[in-house]
Structures are given as structure tokens and as C-alpha cells.
């Protein structure tokens, strides 16, 4: 296995196009390499280097003022790229922790804009800006509630931009957690009918959020045989390497984008070990989890990391909280904040019941009976348990496009995938 990884990485670094005349030529067959490296530019569809877009704000809850320590999160932020003439509008929902402006989101923005769509990019409900400004509970993760929050924001955005653009039809897509949420948003839209989405595409969704979160947590532990106390040493290695290779200030997203780039830099000189790659992916999600957990903790005054009732000012140090938050996993978030929080709001809620609610199985019948929803996934996606893939194949049948490899979202920017996606929406 190791030699395959080495070969693949060297192929990438030398810039030699990988693969032969196989049916599917995405260059990385190892799911870990695919997840981290993604799709190198030469394998992506041809797109302009930059396109015009507007950065816009909505005040979702007019009466809500952010706490002093988050003073800068005043409004919900999103981007709009629009066509001069009448065109379909597509909403894109980001993956875990990511903002509307992360590198994958910019990819979709360009892809759809170039294909003649108006494009609205939305941050994930697990992104800090969303939690502070647009989440009703400020405790993200409940797919039904997250869909309501998303729908509210989308409706407000539509009110804000409808004078400016002419829209023929509405479409919806999302990747990773954003894909799971898009199914719930589509279901809500069938009831409320503001958009009447014509087509919806889910790209690499999680089936059960709890299962996926556990898989990602375990990835960090695999990289830390010395236990959670050694996370810091591991983190340091990544961080230091990153600072050497890249201009610090030029990165928008300090979680996914920058950590994967750091990893690519580390392994320009040495060959990656699979445990390290798993650890890297887990760490990326761990940082998203700690951002989400701390933001949620402050917003709800829950008292998990920040002492309850303590009011933080805009100049107070958060370093100690960051050290604690980095030690906290998704499952910790679920057990210590998410579940107790919802239990206090909904008496009688059981843990099993909550876990069941958080995923696609809870809307099984809807997914089966709704032909406008399409699925793109990978057989080797790391965040799926084996039974999840079987579930998806069964539910979506011919509406599922399952690629043999590509890891978690690694191949979504590959030219064949992009062409398939556009073809689905345009025809």
C-alpha cells in the first residue's frame, strides 16, 4: 500500500498526468491521498482565474447583537455572482466548518457562473459566522433545525437580490455536510414552496452525522498513539511546516484550506504514512469542531469551556480556551453540549432518538420518492460506514452516481465529475 501512495504522490509532484486509458481517470485511487490532495489544477475543468462577485450581508435576526468577544460577526455574509440576463439561480452549501469563501466554494462559484447560472454561496451552518448570526439555537448539527436556519437565510437573500437579477428556476447543491443538509432543505421547500427547486444534487453527503463524526474523531486518535496529550506535538509539526511554505496572510480559511496545504508541503520531501494522512484529515475536522464548539458554548452560555455567566470582552485572551477546545472531539461536542442542550429543550429526547434524527435515514421515504434529487458519491468515501453506501445505492438507485474512488470530496473538482454535475443541472 505504501508504495502505491509513494508512486501516486510522486506522480503528482512531478506533474505527470496519472492513469492510463481507464474508464475513470481521476488520479488518486487512495482515499486518504484523494481527500487531502483533492484535484490538482491540471485535472480541473478550465475556468477563469477570477470572476466578478458581490460580498453581501443580511441581518437575519434584527434583534440579535453578537457578544462583545464576537463583535465582528454582526451580519450573515454570503456571495453572489450574477448573470446580466435571465438565468437559473443555484444555492451552494459549504461543508463542515467551511465558509462561503473557502477554496471548494470558490470552485463551485466559478463552475456554475461559467455555465450560465446565478450563484449564491452559503457558509455551512457549522461555520462561526452562521452560528453567531443565522442559527436560531446557535447549536448546529441538528439537520432539521439547520435546514430551517438555511431556509430562512435563503429566503432573506432572495428578498434582497430579486430586484437585481432575473431568475428562471432555482437549483440547490452542497458537498459533505452541506449535501446532507441540502436534502433537508429540499424537503422543507416542498412544504413551504418558496423556491420549488427544480433539481438538487448532493455531493458526498454524510448518511449518519454521528457515524461520520466518530470516524473522523478516530482518525485523530490513530495519529496520536501517545494519547490526546500528544495532539499538541502533532499540531505543532503541521503548523510549523505551513508557516514555512506559505504566506500566512493570504489564506482565508484557516482550517481546511490551510491544513491540507500544509500537509502537501510536508510531504514534498518525504512519503506520507497512511496513519499520518488519517490524522491530518481528522485534525482538519478537529479544528472545525473546536471552532464550532467554542462559538456555540459562548453563544448559549452553556459553560462547557468558558465558565458559565462569564462575559468575555473583545480584548480578552482566548488562548487557554483554544488549548482546551483543541482537545475536544465531535463526539465530545455531541455528548457534552449538543445532546444536553436539546434534552433540556425537548423533554423525553433520548440519545438514540437524537442520533437517528441526524441523518438521511430519517428521511428515507422522502429521498426514495423525490426524483429531482440526485446523488454523487464515492465508493471509498472515508466518512461512510459500509452499510451507509448500501443504503444510498438502495435509496437512490439509478439517481446515484457512485465513483469507484475519490475519497471524501477529493474528486468533486475533477473535470469528469464537474461535467457530470453540470450536465445534471442543465439537461
Amino acid at each position, binding site marked *: 500500500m505504501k508504495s502505491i501512495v509513494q508512486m501516486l504522490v510522486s506522480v503528482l509532484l512531478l506533474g505527470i498526468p496519472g492513469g492510463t486509458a481507464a474508464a475513470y481517470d481521476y488520479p488518486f485511487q487512495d482515499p486518504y491521498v484523494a481527500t487531502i490532495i483533492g484535484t490538482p489544477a491540471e485535472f480541473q475543468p478550465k475556468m477563469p482565474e477570477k470572476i466578478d462577485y458581490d460580498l453581501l450581508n443580511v441581518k437575519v435576526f434584527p434583534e440579535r447583537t453578537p457578544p462583545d468577544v*464576537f463583535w465582528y460577526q454582526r451580519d450573515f455574509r454570503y456571495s453572489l455572482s450574477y448573470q446580466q440576463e435571465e438565468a437559473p439561480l443555484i444555492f451552494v452549501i459549504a461543508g463542515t466548518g467551511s465558509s462561503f469563501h473557502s477554496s471548494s466554494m470558490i470552485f463551485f462559484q466559478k463552475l456554475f457562473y461559467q455555465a450560465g447560472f446565478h450563484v449564491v454561496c452559503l457558509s455551512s451552518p457549522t461555520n462561526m459566522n452562521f452560528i453567531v448570526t443565522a442559527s436560531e439555537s446557535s447549536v448546529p448539527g441538528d439537520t432539521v433545525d439547520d435546514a430551517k436556519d438555511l431556509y430562512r437565510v435563503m429566503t432573506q437573500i432572495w428578498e434582497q437580490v430579486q430586484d437585481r437579477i432575473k431568475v428562471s428556476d432555482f437549483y440547490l447543491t452542497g458537498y459533505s455536510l452541506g449535501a446532507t443538509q441540502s436534502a433537508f432543505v429540499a424537503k422543507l421547500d416542498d412544504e413551504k414552496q418558496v423556491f420549488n427547486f427544480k433539481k438538487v444534487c448532493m455531493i458526498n453527503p454524510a448518511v449518519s452525522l454521528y457515524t461520520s463524526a466518530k470516524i473522523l474523531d478516530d482518525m485523530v486518535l490513530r495519529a496520536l498513539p501517545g494519547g490526546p496529550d500528544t495532539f499538541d506535538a502533532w499540531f505543532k509539526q503541521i503548523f510549523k511546516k505551513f508557516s514555512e511554505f506559505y504566506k500566512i496572510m493570504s489564506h482565508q480559511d484557516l482550517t481546511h484550506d490551510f491544513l491540507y496545504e500544509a500537509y502537501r508541503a510536508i510531504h514534498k520531501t518525504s512519503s506520507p504514512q497512511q496513519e499520518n494522512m488519517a490524522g491530518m484529515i481528522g485534525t482538519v475536522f478537529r479544528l472545525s469542531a473546536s471552532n464550532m464548539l467554542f462559538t456555540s458554548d459562548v453563544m448559549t452560555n452553556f459553560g462547557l469551556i468558558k465558565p458559565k455567566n462569564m462575559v*468575555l470582552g473583545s480584548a480578552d485572551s482566548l488562548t487557554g480556551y483554544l488549548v482546551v477546545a483543541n482537545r475536544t472531539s465531535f463526539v465530545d461536542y455531541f455528548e457534552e453540549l449538543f445532546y444536553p442542550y436539546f434534552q433540556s429543550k425537548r423533554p423525553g429526547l433520548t440519545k438514540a432518538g437524537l442520533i437517528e434524527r441526524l441523518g438521511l435515514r430519517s428521511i428515507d421515504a422522502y429521498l426514495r420518492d423525490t426524483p429531482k434529487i440526485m446523488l454523487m458519491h464515492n465508493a471509498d468515501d472515508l466518512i461512510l460506514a459500509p452499510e451507509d453506501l448500501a443504503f444510498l445505492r438502495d435509496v437512490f438507485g439509478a439517481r446515484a452516481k457512485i465513483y469507484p474512488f475519490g475519497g471524501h470530496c477529493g474528486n468533486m473538482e475533477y473535470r469528469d465529475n464537474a461535467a457530470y454535475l453540470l450536465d445534471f443541472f442543465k439537461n
Partner: protein
Amino acid sequence: MNRSLSLMLLAVFCILIGCSTAPVQKEPIIPAKRPVSEYVRPDVTYTIEAHDPWEPMNRRIYNFNAIFDEYVFLPVVRAYEYVLPDIAQTGVSNFFKNLTEITNLTNSLLQFKIVKAVNTFGRIMINTTVGLGGLIDVAKTVDGIGRENEDFGQTLGFYGLGPGPYLVLPILGPSSVRDTTGLVADTIVYSLMMQELIGHLGMNDTQEEILNYSLTGLYAIDKRHTESFRYFMTGSPFEYDLIRKLFLLQREFLIDN
């Protein structure tokens, strides 16, 4: 920059930094379930920690910079980008990069980095002549000689001086006591050079002053234009900490190279 505008900015800055907004504590504080005192051991130095004794002031300046950016700096930069064609923007960037090569040259020499000094000297010669006064980076595109990155902060580090406390500078952003000292020294050298250059244009004092201010303003706009960082867009409540650490580690790396 004209004097009354500077004074006004200074006043706004003092108001923002000076007024300590001590949060009002209304209810009794209940210890956290995962308290910092239990998880953060005093005998361990964590990766994310840094020598930052003036953290409250630094955080206030960081916040000020974000506001300044949003309401003053970025609108000006956007107007600049709207008015000027892309090719002219690149020309302006190259022009200032060429002028500031003086910093790379002096500091490469001070550290006896002869190859870097020779490369930089070559770049200045090629770009100033063939590159039409620095507007085109011919040295890079034709001869493949890339720009070096040396400054007096690095020179001080090269001779063994540590960074000292972390410091966030108004408008300019992350720095340290050592690097701020370096910045002052580099700015003096640059200003002396500019005075000398402008002195050769045969202008009267007022014209010289106007040119000087215009160039400084344009330089600031170009600096911000070439920098894609946007405050509070990282999606992390710990942005200040992350940027601080990345900055300090990167300086360490630059000094070693």
C-alpha cells in the same frame, strides 16, 4: 497624508484603543465543565502560545485594524482597483517592489548573503533599465531571478536577537519588538533613498512634498491591494491566536534562510 487627517485618525485610534470596555459581569460565574485550569498545564508550553505580554492592547489594535480596513482601507483599495486597469495595477506593484529592493540589498549585505545580494543588485539593474523604471519585472519573467525577502528584523535575528514581545502595529498588523525596530531602520534607509531620487528631479519644495505624499499613499494602497487577507474571515473564533503563531513561526523560518 495631510496633518489634520493624521490627527483625526490618531484621535479615532485613541478612542478605540483607550476606552477599555471592561465587560459587565451580572451573574455569578460558575466554573466550566472543561475548565482551562484543568486542561492547560502550567509546566507545558503549548504550540499555540506565544510571548505576548501586551495581549489586551494587541487585541484592541487588531480590532482597530479590522475596522480601519473595512471602513477606510478596503474602500480606497476597491476604488483603486475599479479605476485602474489590471495591467497598470501590476505595473504599480512592480514599481514599488523595485524601489523597496533597497531593503533586500542592504540586509543581504549586512548578513553577508552574497548570492542574495548579487541577485538583488542584478534585479534592480535589469528592472530599472529594461523593465522601464521597475514597471515590468523582467528579471523574474525573462531571467528567472526571483525576488529575495530580507529585512532588518531578519538581520537582527541573524545576529542572534530574539523577537521579544509580540506586537500588533496599527494598520500594519502583526510584528514583534525586534521586527518593529527593523521596520523603522528599513523605512529610514528607504526614505533617504527616495529623498535622494526625488531631489534629482529638479522640482521645487512644494512639488517634492506633493510627490512624496502621493507616492506614500500609492504605496500603502498597493500594499493592501496585493494582500488578500481579510480580517475575521477565517471562520475561527481563535483567529488572533492562529495569525499570531503563524506570523512568529514564519519569521523564525525567514531568519533561518
